[in-house]
């Protein structure tokens, strides 16, 4: 069964943000990687790209289908998780440890619109 981690902010489209100071680490939830099945490719933006809350910034591909990644918050990409280029299956092994991009948050108040773990769990069970 899916693992739900406390202390993160979650979006309805199953991305999470882990906040550290002015930075946010964005990835997909364990629930999302379960639903996708074997991840075979992660399409990531480049460092210095701007991402906008609610807009697509990349995609995660399973054998069968591509799923867009939707930015839960806005900001500038300061780092991408390069390990996913060679080992996209890391998302299946531990989706929370393997974030996809690190952004410098441009508007931390956007976090208020996201869900905490309890609300997100309820969202997944609905």
């Amino acid at each position, binding site marked *: 069964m899916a693992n739900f981690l406390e202390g993160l902010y979650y979006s309805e489209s199953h991305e999470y943000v882990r906040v550290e100071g002015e930075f946010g680490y964005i990835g997909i939830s364990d629930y999302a990687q379960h639903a996708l*099945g*074997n991840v*075979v*490719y992660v*399409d990531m933006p480049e460092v210095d790209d701007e991402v906008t809350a609610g807009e*697509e910034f990349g*995609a995660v*591909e*399973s*054998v*069968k*289908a*591509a799923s867009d990644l939707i930015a839960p918050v806005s900001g500038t990409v300061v780092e991408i998780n390069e390990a996913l*280029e060679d080992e996209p299956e890391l998302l299946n092994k531990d989706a929370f440890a393997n974030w996809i991009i690190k952004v410098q948050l441009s508007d931390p108040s956007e976090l208020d619109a996201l869900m905490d773990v309890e609300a997100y769990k309820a969202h997944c069970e609905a």
Partner: protein
Amino acid sequence: MEKKTCLYDRHVALGALMSPFGGFIMPIQYSNITDEHNAVRQHCGVFDVSHMGEVRVTGPDAERYVQHIFTNDVAGAPLGQIYYGMMCYPNGGTVDDLLVYKMGENDFFLVINAANIDKDVAWMNEQKDGFNIVLDHQSDYYGQLAVQGPESEAVVEEVLGLPCKELKFYTAKPLPVGGGREGAPVIVSRTGYTGEDGFEIYGSHEFIQQAWDKLMESGRCKPCGLGCRDTLRFEVGLPLYGDELSADISPVMAGLSIFVKLDKPEFIGKEALAEQKANGVPQKLVGIELADKAIPRHGYAVLKDGEVIGEVTTGYHCLSVDKSVCMALVKTEYSKLGTELEVQIRKKTFPGVVVKKKFYDKHYKK
């Protein structure tokens, strides 16, 4: 509302991911696509393909009728011989691709795609004027299993107790087992849609349920969903109606001319297909291999120097050779092997090169 096959409850009990396909609610995967794919390549897998449609054509004009609607040539076929081919419209577009089993003199068993059953049966009925035949639509009677993989012969013989060793590639025989109704025996054929050796078994719902249970109990055969059925058929370049063939994509455009016998006296679409073969077609189906790992999917644009010159029909990160590849319908001038072009994947374009449409070699036992 989608139909359920006779194995629906078993799929749900196994925890399969179920999804609509061709008017049916079908298992897409039980464990994961990669494991199921590899089971078929290396050992043995079983697919519920009961969604496929079956039509029996009998009567004094049955052979003449099949010759009329079918692009391949069944004249003088030995009993049990199976032919792959298409039914085409007069303009050469494809109604469906299908298998034709010769079960007796003027007795043919036609296997059609699930999504096309209603359309095909209507089409067949429209074409039968002037032919003394009976069309018996048997899709609701038959269930079907595909047992596929290098170990499938042993599994069918030993687990199911069905004699199949002697069957040659693309031949079938009716078996005196499993009850069945008049004119609808259990049929076993050495056929499949995976590029591996394998068998397809047609029988009543009860017979298919019992066979499935025996296969599951044996532990020698992995249940496989339509997800890996698609990756398996794609890798060996087999077309799927709706992707590589359609009312707009003729068998000549799809590179399937070998199944279009223009030396037959007549069949529907012959003139158009002969013209296409003689004068060329505006678009052709090709294989494309990408340098990058990004995955081209159905409907993505194919470009040359920024201009759209075609569209992806099926694409995957090919499981057996670890490359991103696709089949695509492109303007004929860009269809030569080695042609460099690009595929648009979301916001980016990725360079690719035209290659053969077969990304993995078939392992048939002939």
